[in-house]
């Protein structure tokens, strides 16, 4: 009986001792530190047609009939009349916060608007209309694109993460 008790105590000691020494692998100590930049949900859930804008940071491209669509990384889509490829003409800019992707069927353009999928009627590219919004179609951005970095954890109650910026924060709690 005593032996059994001793054995149980030994096992308990070993297990608890093991716990005391266990620690998760530490975050990388080198590399950059990021923090999320938030926007209120209501502010980003807006789509507007604007006059043609200068091309700054060209992203994905898409061709449909005589139209060429050029994504402006993170902010919307340039609509180009490309009937004469020697002389493409900018028709309008569709402002879509957080936009990176697009596809077109008939006269409907599908785009990501931060967390949502939006369907836009582009029959008149100078007067684009929102026809459907599917909320939370995409995952909440919980981490920056870069790897081996530490960052301030994203908090969905504070809004939508529209981008990640480099920052000097003491002891950020998240890393990847």
């Amino acid at each position, binding site marked *: 009986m005593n032996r059994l008790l001793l054995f149980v105590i030994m096992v308990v000691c070993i297990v608890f001792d093991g716990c005391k020494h266990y620690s998760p692998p530490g975050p990388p100590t080198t590399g950059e530190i990021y923090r999320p930049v938030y926007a209120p949900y209501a502010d980003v859930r807006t789509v507007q047609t604007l006059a043609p804008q*200068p*091309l*700054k*940071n*060209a*992203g*994905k*491209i*898409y*061709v*449909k*009939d005589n*139209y*060429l*669509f*050029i994504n402006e990384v993170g902010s919307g889509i340039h609509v*180009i009349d*490309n009937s004469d*490829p*020697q*002389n*493409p003409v*900018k028709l309008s800019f569709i402002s879509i916060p957080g936009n*990176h*992707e*697009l*596809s*077109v*069927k*008939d*006269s*409907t353009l*599908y785009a*990501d608007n931060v967390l949502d*999928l939006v*369907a836009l*009627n582009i029959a008149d590219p100078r007067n684009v209309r929102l*026809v*459907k919004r*599917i909320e939370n*179609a*995409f*995952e909440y951005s919980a981490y920056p*694109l*870069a*790897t081996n970095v530490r960052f301030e954890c994203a908090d969905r109650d504070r809004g939508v993460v529209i981008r990640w910026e480099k920052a000097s924060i003491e002891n950020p709690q998240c890393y990847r």
Partner: protein
Amino acid sequence: MKSTLYVLLTLVVLMACEKGSSDSMSPGAGVGGSTARFTISGNTLYTVSNTALQTYDISASDNPKKGANVSLGFGVETIFPYRNNLFIGTQTGMFIYDIVQPGSPKQVSLYTHIQSCDPVVAQGNYAYVTLRSGTTCRNTAFNSLDVVDISNLSSPKLLRSYPMKNPHGLGVDGTFLFVGEGDYGLRVMDISDPTSVREIQYFDSVKAYDVIPTQKRLIVTGPDGIYQYGYADRTQLKLLSKIAVAP
């Protein structure tokens, strides 16, 4: 009489498909680049996140309906439709999905390669995959163009690998293969014989991230802007226009 009409109609539809370009199966839809995460096949919009494939029924194009979600693991980057399949590029390989039932994609195979960034396009019996190094690609040195034999979709096999500098997007049309080499330029290749891909032209002054070849016109996107070329002439590209980025 009616049945003859149906047979004729079916023949016309089948003949339309014979052209074999990726967009011919999706009347009413446009064409995207190889780095796209959205694509349309038939009446379905497919989107890929970092981890999953999502379907949307767009039979009524102005009323997309959210459909099935298929988990794909990690590092998913691109999606390309070809005939009844989706080719999905991930950081560790290429998935081939069957979309005969458009709303419920089924995995046919997974072709694995070293970890890298890798869009994929397909034509005929071959898939063309570029592997690129870079900090977010978890690959420090390896850059190549891999030609993969997909004559048996359930068992893709590497046919040949060609060294590249830093390939991003790529596009295929007939015997032409265009590769955007990022800051290193634009490569025009002849793929008449996929076991012996030949370079036709190499522009080192054009920074190219992704390309769309369509109707003998090539559209190139890069950090300096959008270039359009004609390639009706088989020996050299002809610059048609450039939409420059604002200084």
